[in-house]
């Protein structure tokens, strides 16, 4: 009976294949949806990047030259929100869609229609967010953290922003349900959980994190909404509320969110480094446990973002000790990657370069994280450019570099074409250099006491701000160059060889042709 049904489904898929725009609107194919996620994410990356350049243009020299302070505040706010929710998160969901079914030998995601829906919620959310810019009073200048009671003062832009966050949350939760169900139920015969590629493990853990914390964020912004319009006083002391309550709720979401972004990046790196070292991942089991430990610890350290709100000292001590603990599993991961490379046979194609760039710069971000974990020092550095530098090392050189590594690594499998290796390497070196020019100097600005989110600054901060702005424009142009490299490869790239990477040994490389067919693993492979 099931054989007959399978046959029917197979023909059906080939008979009615809408083309043009409707293909993309109605598709339930994990590869199509993965592609849409990745392009959506790139579009948002450009929008958020242009905003970053407006910020850096204004900060190129002291004084107000380019924008007024209200617009500047809106820029920092939307840059953060768009990069976190519009660019980085959807990029890794795109990887999950493309890769998870192929890596575990499944024909598609568990809920293909829900998969379509979780993608198609994103464009309306992005539209709401961008439309909020054009509301009376302009965009909301509250920072991506949306702290009350500043949010209560804003115009209607704030409401649109809140609804956008609601929709993004729904999309993430549906995506996560899909990923968890796929990973737990649709693995090929013989592929036990502890045989899954590490990328799948990182997404399993990330999906649980998302389901746990996205509702918390939705709750926080909904409380803001009712404080704004329906007379509640959750965050207003005059009515018995507390503005700091918002920060506790937000960061209970916000800290796991950091790992929601970082953990899938760890997954990509854990595929790329072994492939180009031609050697199995060192300490697979400890990698799984380290990732799970990081995820669990991420729930109990949130208030280290709030050392200056005036918590009791014992509270600060607890959060300091818990935060320092995170260094241990993170260190284990770095050591495992190094041990994977050790005595390997390493080559340096673009994916490996980005993975090494990740390893170096993410560790640097870890170092500044160690500095920030010390509460007494953090109080000095809190809300200064040191923190801006720290999280860009983790988010850009961490997550974004991992995403680049992933795109170059799986590009031949996705498209059947090869990117131009020379151009890919150039993209890496440009990104690496300009990233550091932009962000390394921001450590010095923060140490010297320049607060973040200010449109104008005192004269002693001038030189480093100029250097940083020059770096930012270079970094931005490097990403336009990335677009060129990718489009050129899609349009006129050479045909990819069947096995472009000698050391790649997961199912999509060993059991599927290059490029991967539209429908893969209709019959599951058997894993030894």
């Amino acid at each position, binding site marked *: 009976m099931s054989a007959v049904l399978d046959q029917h489904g197979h023909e059906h898929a080939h008979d009615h294949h809408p083309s043009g725009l409707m293909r993309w609107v109605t598709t339930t194919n994990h590869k199509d949806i993965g592609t849409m996620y990745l392009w959506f994410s790139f579009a948002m990356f450009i929008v958020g990047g242009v905003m970053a350049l407006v910020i850096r243009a204004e900060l190129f020299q002291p004084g107000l030259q380019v924008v007024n*302070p209200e617009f500047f505040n809106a820029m920092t706010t939307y840059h953060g929100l768009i990069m976190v929710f519009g660019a980085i998160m959807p990029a890794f969901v795109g990887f999950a869609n493309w890769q998870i079914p192929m890596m575990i030998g499944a024909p598609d995601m568990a809920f293909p229609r829900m998969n379509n829906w979780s993608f198609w919620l994103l464009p309306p959310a992005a539209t709401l967010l961008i439309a909020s810019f054009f509301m009376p009073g302009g965009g909301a200048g509250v920072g991506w953290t949306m702290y009350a009671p500043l949010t209560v003062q804003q115009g209607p832009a704030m409401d649109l922003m809140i609804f956008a966050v609601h929709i993004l949350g729904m999309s993430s939760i549906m995506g996560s349900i899909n990923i968890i169900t796929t990973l737990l139920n649709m693995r090929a015969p013989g592929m036990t959980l502890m045989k899954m590629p590490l990328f799948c493990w990182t997404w399993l853990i990330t999906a649980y994190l998302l389901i746990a914390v996205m509702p918390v964020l939705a709750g926080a912004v909904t409380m803001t909404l009712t404080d704004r319009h329906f007379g509640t006083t959750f965050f207003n002391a005059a009515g018995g509320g507390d503005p*700091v309550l918002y920060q506790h709720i937000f960061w209970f979401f916000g800290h796991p969110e950091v790992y929601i972004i970082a953990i899938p990046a760890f997954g990509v790196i854990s595929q790329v480094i072994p492939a180009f070292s031609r050697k199995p991942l060192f300490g697979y089991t400890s990698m799984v446990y380290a990732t799970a430990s990081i995820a669990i610890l991420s729930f109990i350290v949130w208030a280290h973002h709030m050392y200056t709100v005036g918590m009791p000292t014992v509270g600060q001590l607890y959060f300091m000790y818990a935060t320092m603990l995170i260094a241990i599993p993170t260190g284990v991961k770095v050591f495992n990657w190094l041990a994977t*490379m050790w005595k390997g046979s390493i080559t*340096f194609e673009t994916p490996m370069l980005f993975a090494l760039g990740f390893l170096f710069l993410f560790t640097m971000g870890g170092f500044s994280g160690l500095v920030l974990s010390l509460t007494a020092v953090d109080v000095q550095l809190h809300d200064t450019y040191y923190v801006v530098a720290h999280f860009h090392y983790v988010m850009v050189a961490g997550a974004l570099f991992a995403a680049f590594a992933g795109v170059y690594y799986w590009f031949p499998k996705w498209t059947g074409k090869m990117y131009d290796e020379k151009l890919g390497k150039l993209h890496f070196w440009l990104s690496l250099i300009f990233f550091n020019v932009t962000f390394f100097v921001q450590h010095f600005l923060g140490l010297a006491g320049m607060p973040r989110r200010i449109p104008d600054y005192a004269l002693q901060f001038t030189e480093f701000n100029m250097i940083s702005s020059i770096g930012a424009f270079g970094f931005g142009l490097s990403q336009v160059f990335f677009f060129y490299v990718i489009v050129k490869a899609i349009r006129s790239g050479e045909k990819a060889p069947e096995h472009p990477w000698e050391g790649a040994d997961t199912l999509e490389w060993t059991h599927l042709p290059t490029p991967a067919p539209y429908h893969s693993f209709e019959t599951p492979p058997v894993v030894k």
Partner: protein
Amino acid sequence: MLAGAGAAALYAGAAGAALEWNFQTPATRTAAEVNDLHLLMMAIIFVIFVGVFGVMFYSIYAHRKSVGHKAEQFHENTTVEVIWTVIPFLILIAMAWPATRALLNIRDTAHPDITIKATGYQWKWGYDYLQGDGQGISFYSSLSTPRAQIEGAEPKGPNYLLEVDNPVVVPVGKKVRVLTTANDVIHAWYVPSLAVKQDAIPGFVRETAFRAEKEGTFRGQCAELCGKDHGFMPIVVEVVSEEKYAAWVAEQKKKMAAAADDPNKQWSLPELVARGEKVFAANCVACHQANGKGVPGAFPALAGSAFVNGPHDALLKLLLEGRKGTAMASFKQLTDTELAAVADYIRNSWGNANPEPVLPAQVKAAR
């Protein structure tokens, strides 16, 4: 860090001025302790840096395929894994001790000699000396950098954006406790060289403390995003000798007595308008603008406004209570005379004309 030092030296040479690239020179024992703690951590990080990246770059150099290195296939080693879990743990335990001590010291606000309340307003600071010498002194402290410098019409002064009309003055060597609170949204009271940063939260009072060990002027800024002019509400603390402090206190007390308005004075409209212009410049101009036109869509125009020119009861109510859900805060902290004066100023400027003055007594009645 080395690259940074190189860059710093290079730029110091080029610009002829020292470039700030580390913590500001500590002026308190706690700031020095934070500095030391940071240095210790940097030293440990340097060791880890050399170890970790030494291994990484050696591996990149020696285990390349292009030099013919063949991959070995090992993929676990329990001993190594235990070692690299335990060593970081031990380092962290060792770090926890100085980190805890430094935190306990910066959190020690007990037994102050002087207590000052710092209130964050959008966008200035208000200070009230609550206890110790100078008790009763109270003033506002706003950015004194001229608008023309910010817009580039005039060259920028040496303390651009870090200068105020009325600095906080404290005596050297005395423990000063700062209570922070806010009138509207969250601000943060941050002076780097004193090692204090404390959020100012509306409706709550938080505390921090410092004991300055040397005289001098120490500059900081609001460190929590508080809206449009977040970057324009600096903090200046002048640490002076005890004699100078006593002189300053006496001068402030005299000034406050002189500035107090005679409750029985009969005000004329031109007098009120002239007074109101100053109040407007100190409190209202950031949003409603010097030309009274506001910022379309964000801050309403006062020129030609039906509300401003309408019955003064509603206007006074707005000034006293603010408007919920907007940036219009309550200004009830101003005196009756100041509120009456500013009402008269806006009702008689930019083409508005209301010859019947609003009087301080009417504000008093409206409170």
